[in-house]
C-alpha cells in the first residue's frame, strides 16, 4: 500500500513537470512584448522597458526564465497579476472557495439526478422509463451549459422573477441569499455531470444485475427491492463513485462559462477576466493550479477505489 502510493505519486511528478514546461512555453506564443504591455503609457521609454525586463527576468535566456519561474511555483509563488499587482496565489486562494461551493452543490445535484435515473433505467431496461432517462442524458451532454444558463435566467429571473439573474453572496454571510444566487448555476453545471453519472450507473447496474450473486439472491426468494438495493446497487456503485471524483474535477472547467454567465466571482471568472485583460501570469497560475487539483483528485480517486474495493487492497 505504502509502496503503491509512493509509486503513484512518482508518476504524478513528471506529468506536472512537463505540464509546467508547456504552460511556461505558452508565453512564447504570445503576440507582442510583455514589457510593452506592462509599461502602458510609458511604452515609448526604453529605460522603463529595460527596467521591466530586468525585474521580470525577461532579459535572461529562456531556460533561466523557466527555472526562475519554476523555482517560485514550487514555493507556491505564481508571480503577480500584471493588471492589479496582487500575487496570483492570493487571487487563486480567494476565488477557489466560491467555485468549490458551486462545484459541490452541482455535484450533489448531479448525484441526486444521475444515480436514481441510472438505477431506474437499468431496472426497467427497454421500457419507456429507460428510453426517457436515456433521452434526458443525451440532451444533458448535448446542451452547451452556458446556453442552458442563459435559458434558465430567461425563465426563472426574467419571466418568473423567482431568482436573481446574477451575483454572489458568500455562504457564511447569508446562507439563504447564497443558495438563491448559486442554485441556478449549480443546476446548470450539474446537468452535464448528471448525464454522465446516469449512463455509468445504468451500465454498472446492468452488469451487476446479470451477476450470479443476484440470481442467487433472487433464487433465495429475497424481495426484488432488497436484491436491487442491497445486492446489485452496492456493487454497481464502486465504478460510479470513482468516476464521480474525476467528474468533480471536470466541474471546475465547466465553471468557467457558468460563472461568466451568472457573474459569480470564482475561479472560472478569474481565468476569463485574466484572458480579457491579457493578464498572462494569472492565466498560467490558474491552469497550473487546475492541473494540481485534477491530479490530486485522480490520486484520491485511486485511494477511494482501493478503500471500497477490498480485492485491490493487497495488490
Amino acid at each position, binding site marked *: 500500500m505504502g509502496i503503491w502510493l509512493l509509486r503513484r505519486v512518482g508518476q504524478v511528478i513528471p506529468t506536472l513537470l512537463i505540464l509546467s514546461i508547456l504552460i511556461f512555453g505558452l508565453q512564447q506564443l504570445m503576440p507582442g512584448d510583455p514589457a510593452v504591455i506592462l509599461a502602458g503609457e510609458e511604452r515609448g521609454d526604453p529605460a522603463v522597458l529595460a527596467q521591466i525586463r530586468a525585474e521580470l527576468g525577461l532579459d535572461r535566456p529562456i531556460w533561466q526564465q523557466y527555472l526562475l519561474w519554476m523555482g517560485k511555483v514550487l514555493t507556491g509563488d505564481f508571480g503577480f497579476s500584471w493588471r492589479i499587482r496582487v500575487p496570483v496565489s492570493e487571487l487563486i486562494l480567494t476565488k477557489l472557495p466560491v467555485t468549490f461551493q458551486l462545484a459541490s452543490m452541482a455535484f450533489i445535484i448531479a448525484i441526486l439526478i444521475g444515480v436514481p435515473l441510472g438505477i431506474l433505467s437499468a431496472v426497467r431496461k427497454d421500457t419507456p422509463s429507460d428510453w426517457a432517462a436515456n433521452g434526458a442524458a443525451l440532451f444533458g451532454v448535448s446542451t452547451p451549459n452556458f446556453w442552458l444558463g442563459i435559458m434558465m435566467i430567461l425563465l426563472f429571473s426574467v419571466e418568473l422573477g423567482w431568482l436573481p439573474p446574477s451575483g454572489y453572496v458568500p455562504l457564511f454571510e447569508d446562507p439563504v441569499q447564497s443558495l438563491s444566487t448559486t442554485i441556478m448555476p449549480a443546476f446548470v453545471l450539474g446537468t452535464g455531470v448528471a448525464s454522465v453519472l446516469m449512463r455509468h450507473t445504468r451500465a454498472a447496474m446492468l452488469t451487476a444485475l446479470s451477476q450470479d450473486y443476484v440470481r442467487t439472491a433472487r433464487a433465495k426468494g429475497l424481495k426484488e427491492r432488497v436484491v436491487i438495493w442491497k445486492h446489485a446497487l452496492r456493487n454497481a456503485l464502486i465504478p460510479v463513485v470513482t468516476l464521480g471524483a474525476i467528474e468533480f474535477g471536470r466541474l471546475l472547467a465547466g465553471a468557467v462559462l457558468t460563472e461568466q454567465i451568472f457573474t459569480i466571482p470564482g475561479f472560472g471568472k478569474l481565468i476569463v477576466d485574466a484572458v480579457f485583460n491579457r493578464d498572462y501570469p494569472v492565466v498560467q497560475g490558474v491552469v497550473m493550479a*487546475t492541473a494540481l487539483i485534477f491530479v490530486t483528485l485522480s490520486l484520491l480517486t485511486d485511494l477511494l477505489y482501493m478503500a471500497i474495493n477490498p480485492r485491490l487492497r493487497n495488490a
Partner: protein
Amino acid sequence: MSASTAPTALPAAESPTRRAIKRFLRHRLAVFGLVVVVLFVAVAILAPLIAPYDPLQTSWSRIRKPPSFDHWMGTDENGRDVLSRVIWGARASMMAGVISVLGALAIGVPLGLLAGLAGGWVDAVISRVADAMLSVPFLILAIALAAFLGPALENAMIAIAVTASPVFVRLSRGMALDAKATDWIEAARALGNPPWRTAFVHVLPNIVPPLLVQASLAIAEAIIAEAALSFLGLGMQPPNPSWGSMLNSSQRFLTQAPWLSIFPGVTIMIVVLAFNLMGDGLRDALDPRADKT
C-alpha cells in the same frame, strides 16, 4: 500469400464494411443523426444560396424585431436577420468542428502510432506529454491556448485541435500496442517492411473504426468548444456570425429580445445531439463484439 491457396468453394462473404453499414442503418436514431449532420453540412456549404438576407447587413428600421414571416428568427440589435446569421454561423461551427478534429487526428494519430510501435523513451516522452495535457480540463487548456495565440477563429481551431489531440494519441498508441502483439504485424516486419510502412499500411487501417467513432464524438465536443470560445470572444470576431458569438451579444438583450438567445442555442444543441447520436450508432455498428447478433 497467393490467391490460389484461398478456398474457392465458400460463397462470397459479406465484407465487414457492408455488415457495419447494415448495422448502422438498423439504428434509427443514428441514421437520424447522420441525416441532420448531412443537412447542416449542406447548409454550411450552401449558406450564400439559402440565406434569405445578407448576414452582415444592418438596418436601422428593423432593430430587434421578434420573429415574423419576413424574419423567421427575428432580427438582432443591429437589425440583421437572425436566420441568415444562424445559417452563416453553421459555416464557422461546422468548419471549426471538422477542421479542428482533423487537426487533432493529424497530430495525435502519428504520435500515438510512433509511441506504441517505437516504445522505449520515445513512448515515455510522448505519453507523458499526453498525460500532462489530459491533466488539465479540455476547455481550460483550450481557453489558455487561444488566449495566448490571440482572438481569431483560426486560433480557436488550433487551440481545440491541440487540446483534443492527446485523446487520439492515447487511442492510437493503445491500438498500436495491441497490433504489435499480433502475428500479421510480426509477418509484415519479417517480410522486411520498414517501420513507417508497417505503421501506416498495416496498423492504421485496423484502427480506423475506433478512430472514426472517437472522431465523431470529438466533433460534437469541438463544436461546443468553438461556441464556448466564441462566446468568450476568443473565436469568431464580430461582426462575422458564429453561434457562440451570437449568444454572447444576445445576453445583453435577454429581457427585450429573448429570441436572440434561443435560436443559436437550439441550433448548437441540435447539431451536437446529431453528432452524438451518429457517434453512438457508429460505435454500435463498428464494435466487433456486436458481430454475434
